[in-house]
C-alpha cells in the first residue's frame, strides 16, 4: 500500500505528430490528481501509456521511485495500476461477481471447479463495503450505467490496485449517481490509493481533487493546487487565452411572443401527459435525471418514436408526422444524444454528413450535384469554424467538438429551414473552448428566431444558457422554472422529488 506514481519527462511521438512532450508530475498516495486539457491535449495518450497499452517514446514512469516499464496492460495491472476508461471494459453477459473477479476466480481446492459460494460471498463483501444495492449474480449488462461504473471501480479495488486512473467517469451519470461514485472515490482515497481523474467538469474537479495538471497540445503547461486556483485561471491556462466567464460573455437575445412548438398531453409508453411550449428565439432547457424522459420527448416530437396520444403543434398548426422526414420538412431538427452512433455517418466525409438530410435538394435533373453539397459544407465549415483541412475529411477523424459542429452545420444550412432545433446533450465530452463556441452559436441561432430545446445533464450549462427550464421526472413534467428562479437546488428538487420520497419510505 501507499504507493506513488511519477511521470518523468514522458514524451510520445506518432508519425507526424508529437502527442506528448516532456510531461512531469507525481501522484501521491491518498491524493486525487486532476488531468485537465482540451480534447486532443494528450490526456488519452497519457492514460494509454499508464495502462501499458502504448509505450512512451521518451521518459520513464516511476512506481514508488523505481523506474518501471510496462510492455502490456497485464504488466500495469501487476504493478498495481488500473485505468478505467469511458467505454467500460466489462463483459455484459457475465455476472457482477465474474466481472469483478475475472482473472482471479476462486476455485475449490486446487481447481478446476469454481467455488461459486466463495465468489459470491467475496463479491457481496465488496458491494457492502461500497454501500451498494447490487446482486452479485446479476448480469452486468442489465445494470444501470452508474452501477456498471461501480462494478469497474470494485474491479480495480479487488485487484488491490494502488493507482487508479479514471477517464471522464461521470459523463454518462446523473447527479445522484455521481454522488455515489464520489463516495467510492473517497473510500479509495482513505485507503491510500493514488488517483488520477480526467474530467471536463469544473465543479467535480474542484470538489474531489487535490492537485491539477494541465496539458495543452501534448505539453505539460502547469501543475496547480486545487485549493489555490480558480476556474477562470484553469480555463485560461487550458485554452491558452482568456475566454473569460463562459456564460456572462454570451450575447443573448430576448424570446419573442410567437409560439413555435406546443406539446399538449403527449403520451407514449414512456411519457405521461407531457405539455410545454417553446417560443421563437427562446432557449428552453429540458432538465432531469437520466431516464426522466427527456430524450424520449425529443424523439416523440421528431417522430422518431410513435406517440400513443396527445397533440404536437408547430407554428400554430397541429402536426401529424409519420417519420423524421416529415418533421424535417416541417422545420424540426434533432441533434441526437449519441453523436457517433445516431448523429453521424462516421466513415463518410464532412460534406456527405452535412448533405445527409437534403440529398434530394442536391439533385440537378436526374443526378446529384456534389458541388452543391460542397458549397453547403464550405459554408458550415466557415460558419462554425470547423477545424479541418478539407470538407472531404472523414468525420471519424475529427475531434468530438468538430463533429458536433458538423451536425449543427447540417441543420442550419440553407437547404433546411429549421424553426425548432432540438439539441440532446450537445456538449457531452467536448472541451471548454469548443463548448463556449457552441453556446454562442446556439444563442445566435435563437436570435435569428429559431426555437431551441436544449437537453443537458450538466446543470450549470442548462441553468446558464436557458431562458426557461422545463424539468422532467419519471416521464412527466415536474415543473417549470423561469431564468430568474433557475438555481441548481431548484432544478434538482424538481428532478428528484420522488426519489427523495422513495428514500424516505425505505
Amino acid at each position, binding site marked *: 500500500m501507499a504507493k506513488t506514481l511519477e511521470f518523468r519527462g514522458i514524451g510520445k511521438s506518432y508519425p507526424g505528430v508529437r502527442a506528448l512532450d516532456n510531461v512531469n508530475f507525481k501522484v501521491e498516495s491518498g491524493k486525487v490528481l486532476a488531468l485537465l486539457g482540451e480534447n486532443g491535449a494528450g490526456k488519452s495518450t497519457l492514460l494509454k501509456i499508464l495502462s501499458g497499452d502504448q509505450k512512451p517514446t521518451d521518459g520513464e514512469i516511476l512506481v514508488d521511485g523505481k523506474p518501471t516499464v510496462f510492455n502490456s496492460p497485464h504488466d500495469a495491472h501487476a504493478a498495481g495500476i488500473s485505468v478505467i476508461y469511458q467505454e467500460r471494459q466489462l463483459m455484459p453477459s457475465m455476472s457482477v461477481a465474474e466481472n469483478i473477479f475475472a482473472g482471479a476466480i476462486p476455485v475449490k481446492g486446487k481447481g478446476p471447479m469454481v467455488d461459486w459460494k466463495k465468489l459470491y460471498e467475496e463479491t457481496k463483501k465488496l458491494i457492502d463495503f461500497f454501500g451498494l444495492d447490487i446482486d452479485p449474480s446479476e448480469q452486468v449488462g442489465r445494470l444501470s450505467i452508474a452501477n456498471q461504473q461501480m462494478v469497474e471501480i470494485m474491479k480495480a479495488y479487488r485487484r488491490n490496485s494502488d493507482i487508479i486512473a479514471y477517464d471522464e467517469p461521470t459523463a454518462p451519470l446523473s447527479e445522484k449517481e455521481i454522488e455515489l461514485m464520489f463516495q467510492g472515490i473517497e473510500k479509495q482515497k482513505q485507503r491510500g490509493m493514488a488517483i488520477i481523474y480526467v474530467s471536463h467538469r469544473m465543479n467535480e474537479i474542484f470538489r474531489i481533487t487535490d492537485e491539477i495538471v494541465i496539458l495543452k497540445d501534448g505539453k505539460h503547461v502547469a501543475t496547480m493546487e486545487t485549493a489555490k486556483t480558480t476556474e477562470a485561471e484553469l480555463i485560461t491556462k487550458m485554452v491558452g487565452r482568456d475566454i473569460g466567464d463562459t456564460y456572462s460573455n454570451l450575447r443573448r437575445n430576448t424570446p419573442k411572443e410567437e409560439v413555435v412548438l406546443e406539446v399538449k398531453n403527449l403520451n407514449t409508453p414512456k411519457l405521461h401527459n407531457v405539455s410545454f411550449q417553446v417560443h421563437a428565439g427562446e432557449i428552453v432547457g429540458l432538465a432531469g435525471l437520466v431516464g426522466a424522459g427527456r430524450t424520449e420527448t425529443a424523439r416523440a416530437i421528431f417522430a422518431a418514436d410513435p406517440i400513443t396520444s396527445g397533440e404536437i403543434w408547430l407554428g400554430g398548426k397541429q402536426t401529424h408526422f409519420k417519420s*423524421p422526414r416529415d418533421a424535417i420538412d416541417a422545420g424540426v431538427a434533432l441533434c441526437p444524444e449519441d453523436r457517433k452512433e445516431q448523429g453521424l455517418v462516421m466513415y463518410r466525409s464532412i460534406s456527405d454528413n452535412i448533405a445527409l438530410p437534403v440529398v434530394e435538394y442536391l439533385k440537378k435533373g436526374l443526378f446529384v450535384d456534389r458541388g452543391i453539397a460542397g458549397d453547403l459544407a464550405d459554408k458550415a465549415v466557415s460558419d462554425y469554424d470547423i477545424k479541418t483541412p478539407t470538407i472531404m475529411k472523414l468525420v471519424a477523424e475529427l475531434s468530438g467538438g468538430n463533429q458536433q459542429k458538423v451536425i449543427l452545420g447540417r441543420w442550419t444550412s440553407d437547404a433546411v429551414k429549421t424553426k425548432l432545433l432540438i439539441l440532446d446533450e450537445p456538449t457531452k465530452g467536448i472541451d471548454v473552448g469548443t463548448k463556449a463556441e457552441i453556446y454562442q452559436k446556439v444563442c445566435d441561432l435563437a436570435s435569428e428566431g429559431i426555437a431551441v430545446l436544449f437537453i443537458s445533464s450538466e446543470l450549470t450549462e442548462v441553468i446558464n444558457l436557458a431562458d426557461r427550464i422545463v424539468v422532467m421526472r419519471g416521464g412527466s413534467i415536474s415543473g417549470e422554472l423561469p431564468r430568474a428562479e433557475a438555481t441548481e437546488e431548484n432544478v434538482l428538487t424538481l428532478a428528484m422529488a420522488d426519489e427523495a420520497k422513495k428514500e424516505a419510505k425505505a
Partner: protein
Amino acid sequence: MKKDTSFKGKLKALTQKKIFTLICLYIVMVIIFSVWAELRHTHFLTVPVFKNILNSLVVTSFLTLGAGCLLIGGYLDLAQSSIGAFGSMVMAAAIAGWGFPWYIAIIVALLLCAVFGVINALMVTKLHFPAFIGTMAMASMVKGLMYLFSSMGTGGTAQNINFNNKATEFIGSGDILGIPFGVIVMVIFFIIFGILMSKTSFGMKVTLMGGSPVAATLAGINAEGLTILLFVISAVMGGLGGVFNCARLSQGALQALTTNQFTGLTAAILGGISFGGGVGGMGGAFVGLLILNTFQIGMGIVGVNPLWVTVFSGILLLIALGLDFLAMQRRAKSLSH
C-alpha cells in the same frame, strides 16, 4: 478547401482509389498467367480466352450487381441464388408447360423473384431478423419450393424442365457483331448500376444508410423503404442471372446457380465493397468478379489441377480481404489517438 484539379493532383487522387489497386492487381495477374502459359507452351493472352472469360461473367454479374448494391446498403442476401434458380425454373415452365411467349415468361419469373425480395425485406425491416439468418432460412425454403414446383407436372418427381425457343437461345448464346448478347446486356447493366449508385440521390442515400442506418433515419432518409427496394433489386438481379442461365441451357435446371450462393457477395467484397456497408461501388464489384473468373480460367489454362483451383480461389480471397482488413485496422488505430 478546393479540390486539386491539376493533372498531377488528379493522378494522385486516382492512385488512392481502391479500384486503381484492383485494376493493377488484375494486370499483374494477367501478366503472370501469360508468362506462365508460355512456359507451358500454351497461350493465355488471346481473344478467344478473353471472350470465354467475359462469357463466364454474364450469369454471375447480375448476382454481383444485386449483392453489391445490397451490401453497400449494409445488408446481405444468402437467398439470392435460390431465388434466381426458382426464377429460371418458372421461366422454363412458363415457356414449356404453359405456352407463354418468352418475354411474358421472363417477366413472370422476375416478378415472382421480386415477391421473394419483398418477403426477405419484411423479415429484416418488420421482424428485425438479422439479414444473415432471415435470408439463410429463405434460401432453403425457396430451394424446396423450386423442387416442389418442378415436380408439379410429373406426379411428384423433381426434374429439369426443357424447352425449345429461338429467342431465348439468342439471349443465351447469340451475338451481335461478334460480341455475345449476354456480355452486351451485362455491360449495359453495369453502366446503369454504376451511374445509379454513384450519381443519383438513390445511390447516395443507400451509401449513407449503409454507413449508419440510425443516423440516416434520424436525418430523414427513409431507410425502411430503401431496404425493401434493395432486397427487391437483389432478388430480381438473382432472377436475371437465372433467366440467362435458363436461356443458355434451354432448360430450367435443378442445379442452376447451386454453386453461386456466395459468388455475388464474394465478388462485391473482393471489389472493395466493405462488409459493413457504406463503402464501395459498382466498378470495383465488376473488377472483383473479373478477377475471380480470370483466376479460375487462367488456372485451367496453365494446367493447375481443377481440384486445387478451388483451394487457390479461397487463398486469393483471403489475401484480398486480409489486405483490406489490415488497411482498416491501421486506419482505426490512427484514429484512436
